[in-house]
C-alpha cells in the first residue's frame, strides 16, 4: 500500500480545450439562438423546474382547501381549475420535458457525441414547449380548464365547459406533443447513429437505453393523443360529434384513446428516472450495476407491455368482463419486469461500499417509495378491488408514490449527481441530505394516509367534505405533510441556486463515475470532447482509471473514503 497513494485530483488528465471566440452578441441572445444541446438542456431544466414550482403551488392550494372539512378557501370551480392545472402542469410541463432536459444534456455526452443529430430541431423542441406552457398558463387570466387532466367528454365539451380554457388545454397538448415528438425523433437518431467507436448496444449506458425507449414510446403514444384532442377540438368548435352521446358519439371512445396514450405516458415519465437510478447506484455503491442486460431488457419489455395495459384505467367503465380480465393480467405482467428492476437495484447495493451522498440518498429513497407505489399498483390492477378503489384517494396515493416518490425523486437524485458536470460546482451535501429527509418524511405524511382516505371512501377531486365522514384527521395530516414536503423541495432548489456561485469547484470527475460524460471538463466545452476514447465496456471511465492505475500505481477508485462523502 505504501507505493499506492490516493489520487489527490482526478486523473486521467482531460483532453479538451475551450475555444474562446471574442464575444460579438449579447449573452441572452446567445441563449435564445443557441443550438448547443447543453444550453438547450439547461433551458429545459430551468423551465421545467419553474413549472414544477407552479404545479407545486397549485397542489399546496388544494391541500390547504382540504385541510379542514367544509373549507371555503376556494370554490368548487376554482378547485377544479387547480386540479386540472396541477395534473396537466406536472405531466406535460414538468416530468416529461424534464427528462428531455436531462436527455438533451447527457445523451450526447454519455455516448461520446458532439451534439444531438439535429441541433436546430432540438432548439425547436424547446421553444415549442415554452410556447405550449405560455398558451396554457395564459388561460388563468380568462377561464382555466376545469375538466381534469383526462378531460373526459361530455364534461370537456362546449356545453359543460364553455370557456376557452379547454381549448387552451388542447393547444397545450398539441404544442408540447409536437415538441416531444420532434425531440423523440432527435434522441432516437442520435442514439442509433452517433455512439462512440466501440459502444455496441451492450455497452450503451442504461440512462441512454432508457432515453431511447422513452423516445420510442413517445413516438408510439403521442400521435394517438394528438388525434384525440383534435377530435375534441372539432367536437367543441366545428360541429362534429365524435364524443357526443346525444348524437351517437361515445365518451368511452375518448377514454380508450386518452388512456392508450395515458398509460405509456406513465412509463415515458418513469423510465428515464429508472435510467438515472441505474447510473447513480453503481457509482455510489462502488461496484458494477447488477444485471446490466436484465435492466436493459426489462426496460424494453416494460415499454412493450405499457401499450397493452391502458384499459386498467377503465375498469369501472362499460366494458365486457373478458376485457377486464385481459387488462388485469397484462397489468400483472408489467409488474414482473418492474420487479426485476427493483431486484437488480437492491442487488447493486448488496456487498457494495455505499457512499451516502445526497444523490445516493434520493436514489435509495426512490427505490423504497417506488416499491410501495408498485405494490399498491397490484391492488388496482385486480379489477374487482379496483371497483372499490378506482377514483378514490387510494389511487391518488398510488400514482404520487409512483410519480413523486418515483419520477421526482429520481430527478432530484439525477440533479445532485449531474449538477457538478453541468455547473462545474458541487452542491452542498449536508443541505442536500437534510432536504432529502424533510421531503421523504413530508412525502410519506402527505401520501401514505391518503391510502386510508381512499379505503374509507373518499373520492378524488372533491373540493370539500363533511365532518361526519371521518376524513378530517387524515386530511389534516396530509395537508401538513404537503407543506413539509414543499419545504424539503425548496431546500434543494435553494441548494441548486446557491451552489451555482458558492459551491466547491468540482473538477471533471468528482464522483469517480463510470460513464463518458465525466471524461470532459465541468461544464463541458461546446464541442464536448477533443477526442473520444474507444469504448470497451459499459464503464469506460472505470476502464481508463484502471489503465492509469496500472501505468502509474496511483489508486484511482478508493473504497469510498473520498472527500466528497464527508463534505
Amino acid at each position, binding site marked *: 500500500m505504501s507505493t499506492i497513494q490516493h489520487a489527490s485530483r482526478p486523473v486521467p488528465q482531460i483532453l479538451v480545450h475551450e475555444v474562446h471566440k471574442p464575444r460579438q452578441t449579447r449573452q441572452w441572445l446567445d441563449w435564445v439562438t443557441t443550438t448547443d444541446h447543453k444550453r438547450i438542456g439547461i433551458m429545459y431544466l430551468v423551465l421545467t423546474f419553474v413549472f414544477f414550482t407552479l404545479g407545486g403551488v397549485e397542489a399546496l392550494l388544494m391541500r390547504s382547501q382540504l385541510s379542514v372539512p367544509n373549507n371555503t378557501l376556494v*370554490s*368548487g370551480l376554482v378547485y*377544479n381549475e387547480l*386540479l386540472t392545472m396541477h395534473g396537466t402542469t406536472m405531466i406535460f410541463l414538468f416530468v416529461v420535458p424534464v427528462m428531455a432536459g436531462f436527455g438533451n444534456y447527457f445523451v450526447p455526452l454519455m455516448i461520446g457525441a458532439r451534439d444531438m443529430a439535429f441541433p436546430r430541431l432540438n432548439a425547436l423542441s424547446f421553444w415549442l414547449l415554452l410556447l405550449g406552457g405560455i398558451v396554457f398558463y395564459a388561460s388563468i387570466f380568462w377561464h382555466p380548464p376545469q375538466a381534469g387532466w383526462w378531460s373526459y367528454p*361530455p*364534461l370537456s365539451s362546449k356545453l*359543460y365547459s364553455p370557456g376557452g380554457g379547454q381549448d387552451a388545454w388542447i393547444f397545450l397538448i398539441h404544442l408540447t406533443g409536437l415538441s416531444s415528438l420532434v425531440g423523440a425523433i432527435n434522441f432516437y437518431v442520435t442514439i442509433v447513429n452517433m455512439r462512440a467507436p466501440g459502444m455496441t448496444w451492450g455497452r450503451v449506458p442504461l440512462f441512454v437505453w432508457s432515453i431511447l425507449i422513452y423516445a420510442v414510446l413517445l413516438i408510439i403514444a403521442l400521435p394517438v393523443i394528438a388525434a384525440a384532442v383534435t377530435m375534441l377540438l372539432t367536437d367543441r368548435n366545428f360541429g362534429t360529434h365524435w364524443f357526443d*352521446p*346525444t348524437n351517437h358519439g*361515445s*365518451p*368511452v371512445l375518448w377514454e380508450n384513446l386518452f388512456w392508450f396514450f395515458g398509460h405509456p405516458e406513465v412509463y415515458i415519465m418513469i423510465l428515464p428516472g429508472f435510467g438515472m437510478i441505474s447510473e447513480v447506484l453503481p457509482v455510489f455503491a*462502488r461496484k*458494477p*450495476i*447488477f444485471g446490466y*442486460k*436484465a435492466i436493459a431488457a426489462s426496460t424494453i419489455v416494460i415499454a412493450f407491455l405499457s401499450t397493452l395495459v391502458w384499459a386498467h384505467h377503465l375498469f369501472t*367503465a*362499460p366494458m365486457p368482463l373478458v376485457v377486464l380480465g385481459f387488462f*388485469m*393480467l397484462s397489468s400483472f405482467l408489467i*409488474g*414482473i419486469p418492474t*420487479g*426485476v428492476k427493483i431486484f*437488480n437495484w*437492491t*442487488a447493486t447495493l*448488496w456487498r*457494495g*461500499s*455505499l457512499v451516502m451522498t445526497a444523490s445516493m440518498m434520493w436514489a*435509495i429513497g426512490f*427505490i423504497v417509495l417506488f416499491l*410501495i407505489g408498485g*405494490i*399498491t399498483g*397490484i*391492488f388496482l390492477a*385486480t379489477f*374487482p*378491488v379496483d*371497483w*372499490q378503489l*378506482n377514483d378514490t384517494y387510494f389511487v391518488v396515493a398510488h400514482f404520487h408514490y409512483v410519480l413523486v416518490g418515483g419520477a421526482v425523486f429520481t430527478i432530484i437524485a439525477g440533479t445532485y449527481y449531474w449538477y457538478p458536470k453541468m455547473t462545474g460546482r458541487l452542491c452542498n451535501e449536508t443541505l442536500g441530505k437534510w432536504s432529502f429527509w424533510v421531503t421523504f418524511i413530508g412525502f410519506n405524511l402527505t401520501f401514505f394516509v391518503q391510502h*386510508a382516505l381512499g*379505503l374509507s*371512501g373518499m*373520492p*378524488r377531486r*372533491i373540493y*370539500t*367534505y363533511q365532518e361526519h*365522514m371521518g376524513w378530517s384527521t387524515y386530511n389534516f395530516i396530509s395537508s401538513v405533510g404537503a407543506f413539509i414536503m414543499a419545504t424539503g423541495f425548496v431546500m434543494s432548489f435553494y441548494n441548486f441556486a446557491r451552489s451555482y456561485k458558492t459551491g466547491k469547484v468540482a473538477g471533471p470527475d468528482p464522483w469517480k463515475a463510470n460513464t463518458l460524460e465525466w471524461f470532459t471538463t465541468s461544464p463541458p466545452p461546446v464541442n464536448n470532447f477533443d477526442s473520444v476514447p474507444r469504448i470497451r465496456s459499459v464503464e469506460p471511465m472505470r476502464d481508463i482509471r484502471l489503465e492509469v492505475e496500472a501505468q502509474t500505481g496511483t489508486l484511482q477508485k*478508493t*473504497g*469510498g*473514503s473520498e472527500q466528497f*462523502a464527508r463534505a
Partner: protein
Amino acid sequence: MSRARDLLATLRRRHAVAAAVFLPVAAGTFFAAAQTAAARCCTLPSGGSPNATAIATLYDIILGLGIAVFLIVFGFIAYSVWKFRASKHPVAAQFHGNTRLELSLTAAATMLLVVIAAATFIALPTIIDPPNSNANIGSVLSASLTAPVPPNGKEVTICVMGRQYIWRYTYGANCNKTAWQDRLPYSYQEMEAPAGEVVKLVIQSSDVIHSWWIPALGGKVDAVPGYTTYTWFEALHANVLYHGQCAQLCGREHAFMTAEVNVVPPAQYAAWLRQQSNAIQGQNDQVAQVRRYLVKQGILTSSGNF
C-alpha cells in the same frame, strides 16, 4: 455490597412480576388497538353486501402478500444501507450479476401474481353473480346478457340516473323504459332498498360521466351517457343508512353529489313504495288541477304553453 446485590435482585424480581402482568395486557391492548386501527385505516368495508365482502377478502389477501413483499425487499435495502456503508465496508465486491438468481426471483414474482390472479378468479363469481332472492316485491325480470340476475330470476330493479349533481332513482321493472307510462315511484339522493333481497341497479346518466358508488354495498360503476351499466347488491342488515358519493369528476359541485341507501325490511319497503306512489300521484293531481285552472283563465294554452 451484598445488600446492593439483594436490592438489585429484588428489583429484577419485581420487574419480572410487573412484566409478567404488564406485557400480556399491553400486548392485548396493542393488538386490539391495532385491529381497530386496521379496520379504520387499512381495509375495505365488508359485511354490507356479499359482493363488498368478497372484494374486501380479495383485498386482504393482496394486502398480506404486499406487506410481505415490502418487508422482504425493504429489509434487504435497509440491511444493505446499514451493513455496506462505506465507513464499515470499504471494499466493494465486484460482481456483475447472477443469472440463476435473477431468473428464480422473476419466477417467484410471477408465481405471486399467479396466486393473486387465481384468487381473483375464484372470488369473481361471488362478486358479479347475485345469490338467490325472495324478491316478492318487484316483478320477475327476463334475463339479459349484461344485467346481473340471480339463479331464480327474482330481483328488485331500481334505475339510477346520474345528472349534475344529484342521483335519481326509479323503482320497478322496466324503470329505464316505461317509467312514465307505468307511473313508477321515484326519489332523489336517498334510495330506499329492501334488506335481504337482491337489488339490481340499472345505471345511466343524462349529462356527463358520473360514477355510482356505495362502498359498503360493493364496487363502483360508471354512469356514462349513451350507455347502460348494471350492478347489484344484497343489503344484509335492515335499518342501516349507507353513504356514498359520485366518484367521477362531474363538474364544479362534484363534491356534493352524494347518495344514501336506506335499507329497510321488505314489508316496510313495499309500504314506502305505495306511499311514495301516492305522494307523487297527489302532487301530479295538484299540478293538473292548477293547470286546468290556468288554461281556463287563458294563461296557458291547452298544450301547456304560455
